[in-house]
């Protein structure tokens, strides 16, 4: 453990033999403004990786580079190299549609489509042609809703609109929607920040359960949440990755004073 505190990259490399995703020297610009500066990080399978840091530190922006959602913002430009299973995701040979099927995303504000609960979950499988018929689609929808811990609450009203659910249920519906296409990585951008404490606890439980099957990256403002759900934590400040390592190490024995100040509530 003592070795791991030496440098973020070394620490990451030591933890697992082949990371699911790697970022090397990634910078993101919005027009002239640099939002993320030279970030290198490894994302591991069957791990929850938490990105923490004050508002505007670039953690959400960096998260969105991992499935190229920044492509939808005209002025955004990404430099550096990001790999998924050693494949460059910004290479011209990489199809962004395929990439996003493999790297799913859950947003800060629950954003179910104005369709039925069933159709919300079936959306991805339909687009990617994952189900041969209605029966298969039913199986996928049920499995996804079960994994998202929502099945028992909605199984009798799958035809109702997804937007009629409560906020916490909507967010779990969005998680079910994301896992319905069987992604390898799930990105979560402050998934519980719009929810009440009980709904938040359910989401955290869910993240914990999902870890066995996916690599999960979660951006959060809530440091207790990061400590509770994640195995690895990255601290961002002013677009720079300050420190990255085992969550327990970051929270009990941070190497950098900036990390320590943030965690103890000195600023942020």
């Amino acid at each position, binding site marked *: 453990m003592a070795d791991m505190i030496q440098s973020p990259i070394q620490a990451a490399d030591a933890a697992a033999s082949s990371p699911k995703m790697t970022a090397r020297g990634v910078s993101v610009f919005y027009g002239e403004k640099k939002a993320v500066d030279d970030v290198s990080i490894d994302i591991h399978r069957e791990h929850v990786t938490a990105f923490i840091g004050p508002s505007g530190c670039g953690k959400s922006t960096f998260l969105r580079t991992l*499935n190229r*959602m920044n492509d*939808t913002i*005209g002025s955004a430009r990404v430099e550096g190299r990001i790999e998924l299973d050693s494949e460059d995701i910004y290479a011209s040979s990489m199809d*962004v*549609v*395929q*990439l*996003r*099927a493999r790297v*799913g*995303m859950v*947003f800060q*504000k629950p*954003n*179910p*489509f*104005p*369709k039925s609960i069933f159709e919300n979950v079936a*959306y*991805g499988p339909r*687009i*990617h042609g994952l189900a041969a018929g209605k029966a298969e689609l039913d199986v996928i929808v049920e499995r996804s809703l079960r994994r998202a811990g929502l099945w028992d609450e909605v199984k009798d009203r799958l035809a109702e609109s997804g937007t009629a659910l409560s906020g916490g249920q909507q967010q779990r519906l*969005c998680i079910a*929607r*994301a896992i319905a*296409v069987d992604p390898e990585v799930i990105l979560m951008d402050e998934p519980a920040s719009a929810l009440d404490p009980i709904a938040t606890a359910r989401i955290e439980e869910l993240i914990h359960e999902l870890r066995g099957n996916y690599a999960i990256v979660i951006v959060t403002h809530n440091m207790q949440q990061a400590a509770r759900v994640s195995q690895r934590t990255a601290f961002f400040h002013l677009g720079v990755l300050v420190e990255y390592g085992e969550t327990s190490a970051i929270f009990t024995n941070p190497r950098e004073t900036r990390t320590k100040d943030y965690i103890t509530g000195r600023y942020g």
Partner: protein
Amino acid sequence: MSLGAITLLILGLGVVAWLAARARAAAFAAPDRPRPHSLPGQHGWYVALWTAVPALIFLAIWRQVSGNLIYASVMASPEAAALPAFDMQRQAILSEAYALATGRAETAFNPQAGILAPVYESAIGFYNWIGLAVALLVAFAGGAWAYSRVSPQFRARTRVERIIMMGLLVASLIAILTTLGIVLSLLFESLRFFSMVSPVEFLFGLNWSPQMAIRADQAGSSGAFGAIPLFWGTIFIGAIIAMIVAIPLGLMSAIYLTQYASSRLRAWMKPLLEILAGVPTVVYGYFAALTVAPAVRDLGLSIGIPASTESALAAGLVMGIMIIPFVSSMADDSIAAVPQAMRDGSLAMGATTSETIRKVLVPAALPGVVGGVLLAVSRAIGETMIVVMAAGLAANLTANPFDSVTTVTTQIVQLLTGDQEFDSPKTLAAFALGLVLFMVTLALNIVALRVVKKYREAYD
């Protein structure tokens, strides 16, 4: 002194009152005293408004009343006793005398007018002097009362604000009352029509031929007022053919402009599209009648369908083009109102842009688009110039788009052009048609606005 000059005088008094009140209020401000409630300019406005507005309202009323008073006093004069008894002749002489008296004519054709002119002149002068005196009295009274109230504690700011609010209220009432007046006039003329022709025949009859014999001995039909062919023609052109053109083109251009076009392209394409909405409809009419209609006829004949030069298709196509910017800008607004989160959610699932548009954006924007389409239909069925020029006059009940049909608006134009007889059902039918058109477009607008409003609430 003419009424125009009196008006100017009153306005001048208002300026004087403004200056005086402001000067008086300005004297209140002193470093050792508490700050006055209102600024000097606001006191100025208060007194100026009280000086000018009541006096101007009096003048407006006086203008109406004095005409009758002048006429009465002229008629009562001994010179008027010699006027001929026949009303038309008498009116001619009087109006000539009036023209002489006000300097609009140099010499009189009728010698009697020359005699009456000085009488008129003196009557006008007399009543204008009364008007001037009363207006000045009102102005001075209003001004003096308002001026006496000017004090450091007086809340001129609030009062002026209230007067402005009332002015705005009156402005909005004028628009509403005018609409009400239009509806009432339509309604009364329509009732006269329905006392001659039964509403059932009008609304459900299949035969439209409104020519009436004016004299008893004249050859001609007795007139048939079944408006179904008109309603069908209106719906066929405005709600079917025009919408088949406008909905897909408008929607697709909105999708392209909101989702695909770069901001530079959008910056010049959107205004260009909106220019279409600014082209006068008569220009569309030329285009429909001279360019599109012959082409449509030739097309119809070449594929073996009986076709006339004035066809439903030609009018409908051009009307559809005219409506495109309307549909497009409504669809544009609705699509832009769908939250970005919706779009991101779909893209993050690995959907392509077009999948996102088809499966998420358009369904989510649909109520807004439907509302826009309903508004477009209500515009299309009320549109007149294109159909007058390109759709024809024959009241055919046909589903052949190459055939000529006629619309409600075209028939209204026909019924009201030329010499009119306002007690004949032929002329009055225009009002009944107008009433139906008004009701239908009103209903469409109400439904459309409700749909749009409900949809807006869903995302706000």
